[in-house]
């Protein structure tokens, strides 16, 4: 039997499904795999913090303050030593992962909701809606984030809730910018016109036709903004206007350790390094996701 006798259409459908392609790209992307692994590990650490932490992160022992970590001559009782109140540093780091990830995630969700709605509306409806959203983005970008966040936290008092609300209300700009652009792009696609011609309602078009095509961009921005929020929280906590002690936040740990930085540098190095690794992991993951899921938006 000759090749020509076989169904030509059979021969034609050889390409992988979008899902297969995605999987193939994911597993071929080093940065994504490394970043994803780091983030996954830290997420697991956060989830299983009570099982992993050797001590109660809040239990202080004023007679066992600033014990050095095991690699600097400490004991395995406190593998990473103790802080200025004699609390187990490792346990605080482990619980700190919860704080950082929680802040990152919830902030990204809040700002993501605000920014996506604005961006998608601006991109889809254009005209006046777009003008208003663009103006709001401009206003938001003009506000110095750190300063405004500091001021608000100083006014309302620092707590996890305040922190998350403030960051959530401040960090929506990138969502709006990116989703506005990608919605505009998708909106020009003929399948949107086709759906309109079919008689599909605007919410249906937004949710069923446009959303699936911009969700990749959204996920990318979510990861990058998560990293941004985590860094900002750490910076604010470092400046003393972030989450309140005794909550084990990594930024706060750096801030507390800073006092003894010149004598016990590990107090600063350890939480700073963990923060760096987490944010690096999230960024690698975000960059990777962009390369993998929305390669057209690489910049």
């Amino acid at each position, binding site marked *: 039997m000759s090749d020509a006798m076989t169904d030509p259409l059979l021969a*034609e459908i050889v390409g992988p499904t979008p899902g297969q392609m995605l999987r193939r790209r994911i597993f071929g992307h080093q940065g994504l795999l490394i970043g994803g692994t780091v983030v996954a590990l830290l997420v697991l650490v956060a989830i299983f913090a009570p099982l992993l932490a050797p001590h109660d992160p809040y239990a202080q022992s004023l007679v066992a303050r600033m014990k050095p970590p095991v690699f600097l001559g400490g004991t395995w009782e406190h593998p990473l030593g103790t802080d200025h109140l004699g609390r187990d540093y490792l346990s605080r780091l482990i619980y700190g992962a919860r704080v950082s990830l929680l802040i990152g995630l919830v902030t990204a969700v809040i700002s993501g909701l605000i920014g996506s709605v604005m961006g998608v509306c601006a991109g889809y409806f254009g005209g006046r809606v777009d003008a208003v959203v663009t103006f709001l983005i401009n206003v938001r970008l003009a506000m110095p984030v750190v300063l405004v966040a500091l001021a608000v936290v100083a006014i309302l008092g620092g707590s996890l809730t305040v922190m998350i609300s403030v960051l959530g209300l401040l960090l929506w700009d990138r969502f709006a910018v990116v989703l506005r652009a990608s919605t505009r792009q998708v909106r020009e*696609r*003929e399948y949107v016109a086709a759906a309109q011609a*079919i008689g599909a309602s605007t919410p249906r078009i937004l949710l069923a036709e446009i959303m699936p095509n911009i969700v990749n961009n959204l996920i990318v921005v979510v990861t990058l903004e998560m990293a941004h929020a985590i860094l900002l929280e750490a910076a604010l906590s470092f400046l003393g206007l972030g989450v309140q002690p005794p909550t084990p936040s990594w930024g706060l740990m750096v801030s507390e350790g800073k006092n003894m930085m010149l004598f016990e540098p590990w107090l600063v190095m350890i939480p700073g390094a963990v923060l760096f690794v987490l944010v690096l992991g999230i960024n690698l993951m975000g960059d990777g996701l962009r390369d993998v899921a929305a390669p057209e938006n690489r910049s």
Partner: protein
Amino acid sequence: MTAPVLELRNVVKTYSVKQGLMGRPKPLTAVKDVSLSLGRSEVLGLVGESGCGKSTLAKILLGLEAPTSGEVLVDGEALGAQDRLKLARRIQPIFQDPYSSLNPRKSIADIISLPLRVHGIGDAASQKQAVREILDVVGLPSRVMNTYPSQMSGGQRQRVAIARALIMKPEIVICDEPTSALDVSVQSQILNLLGELRREFGLTYLFISHNLAVVEHLATRVAVMYLGRIVEEAETGELFDNPRHPYSRALLKSVLTPEPGLGVPDTQLGMAYPNPINPPSGCAFHPRCPLATELCKTRAPRPVAQDGGLVECHLYDPETEMFEQA
């Protein structure tokens, strides 16, 4: 000609266009007072250069844009007054770019069944059955239902787009350059399919194209558009055998058929296509027209009936002195 299923009466569409990033918006009249009618089972070919307003016209017919003034009638009913959903059952589009007209994140079954779901026709099972049937009609095996557009070739995608357009059995299909993105060998497949479907389902097409050879092959009537106006409209044979408007003549001359030795024709057209924001005075075609006179620069011609068609040129208007020269 049978009773028109689709009629355009004095349709005007004006956009406000910004020049540059921040320039002052200017009015751009993309469609200028166009009247057209489409009989049942007719294929009206619409030809013209890019920017002449043919795609705007298509959008108006699909209800994607509202005309600035004028009326669109479907079976004698004004379009604006009709329910959008009702309209969607009667008129469906096939777009130019099969890569952009299918949502890449949806399976073929999802794409084709979307009209049924939007209109709430049948349950999941019957929708699936309908998809299977329509796939058969457009010559695709039902296996493709679970694949995605990215897995298909351009020709197959265009078949999917046709299947989506036909699943609700519309009367009218607006084909906006349906083959211009395809290779020749695939283009002929799609043209054949469109012909078959028309015969089988008694479809009416508005067939927009810049490829005159294709229009000649498929259309029963042809309308030639220039800068928002229909400058000539006639039965296909009549137009191709005896083009009247100088623009139609130039267009026909530009068709390069694979016949060796004929050389590249001289269209005798002036170079520049005018800026639609500042259209020329008088007859919009006069700057490019080899036969233009002083009169053409100042006075816009009016449509004149000619052998069952229309032409809009002073040369054919018995009331102007140029008539004699033609």
